[in-house]
């Protein structure tokens, strides 16, 4: 029997890939979906305009159906996180050569030792 006849295609069809993508988007596990793709499935996705069209709809459905889940009750806590992030960026901005000066210090230390 020729080899091709014994090998079955275990890759997902384009409609299965779309449904799995939409499910991953709905359930918040897109990275798992991306990691699950085989080389053949990735090629299938790349060459299917229907897949790309359908992903737009799945995003819309996600926005309409599930976006309410994303509303955090504690906006104040979120604001404090943003404030902390801004403060750390401000600090980083204030010392742009922080790494360089640390390296320079260690060089002087080494020089002093020798």
């Amino acid at each position, binding site marked *: 029997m020729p080899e091709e006849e014994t090998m079955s295609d275990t890759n997902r069809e384009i409609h299965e890939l779309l449904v799995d993508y939409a499910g991953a988007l709905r359930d918040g596990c897109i990275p798992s979906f991306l990691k699950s793709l085989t080389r053949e499935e990735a090629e299938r996705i790349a060459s299917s305009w229907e897949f790309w069209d359908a*992903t737009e709809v799945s995003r819309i459905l996600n926005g309409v159906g599930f976006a309410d889940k994303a509303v955090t009750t504690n906006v104040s806590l979120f604001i404090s996180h943003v404030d902390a992030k801004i403060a750390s960026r401000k600090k980083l901005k204030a010392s742009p050569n922080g790494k360089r000066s640390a390296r320079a210090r260690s060089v002087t230390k080494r020089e002093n030792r020798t």
Partner: protein
Amino acid sequence: MNKRLRNALKGLTAPDVERRRRAMEPFVRATFGIFIKYLYRYLGNEVECEDVLEDVYADIWENPERLRNITNEKQLLMTVYLYYMRKRLREVYRRINRNLYLSQRNLKELIAPEIGALEMVSRSELQQILGQALSKLKARERRAIELWMEGASNRSIANELKTTVGAVKMLEYRTMLKLRKMLRYYYRED
């Protein structure tokens, strides 16, 4: 755009760093709900949405130039998505990209796509448009999408429709393509 948001935007684009920082709180309060709901379309995960948004707001504070001439909420959302959110969305997936078979271009397109007309419509408008489109579908197609939107698994949709999981997947796929055609037509009409 309401007065509070307008004032916050004014403060955000001020040259004084401290004023910009003070303006951040009212800005976040006025926009958090809009931004997180929008971002949820792409991530589907509230924790990830909050992480991305923290960076988005910090980026806005650091470089608010793009928000200088914003006149309405729609324009604000479009600008924030194009110039701040997309960059961060792509970064979320950059770290896993090495192990993926998808090309960088396809990955970008999948997680942070170019903006389409439908992407910028408000949620209430979108609900209305989608409701109209759903009403034009066959009963079986509509039921499958409705169940899916309620969070049902393909197995339970198959049980409800008395069919196989494979048939449900095909039905969902075809219905999404049908919806896409209907929605595109709707926008052309507009």
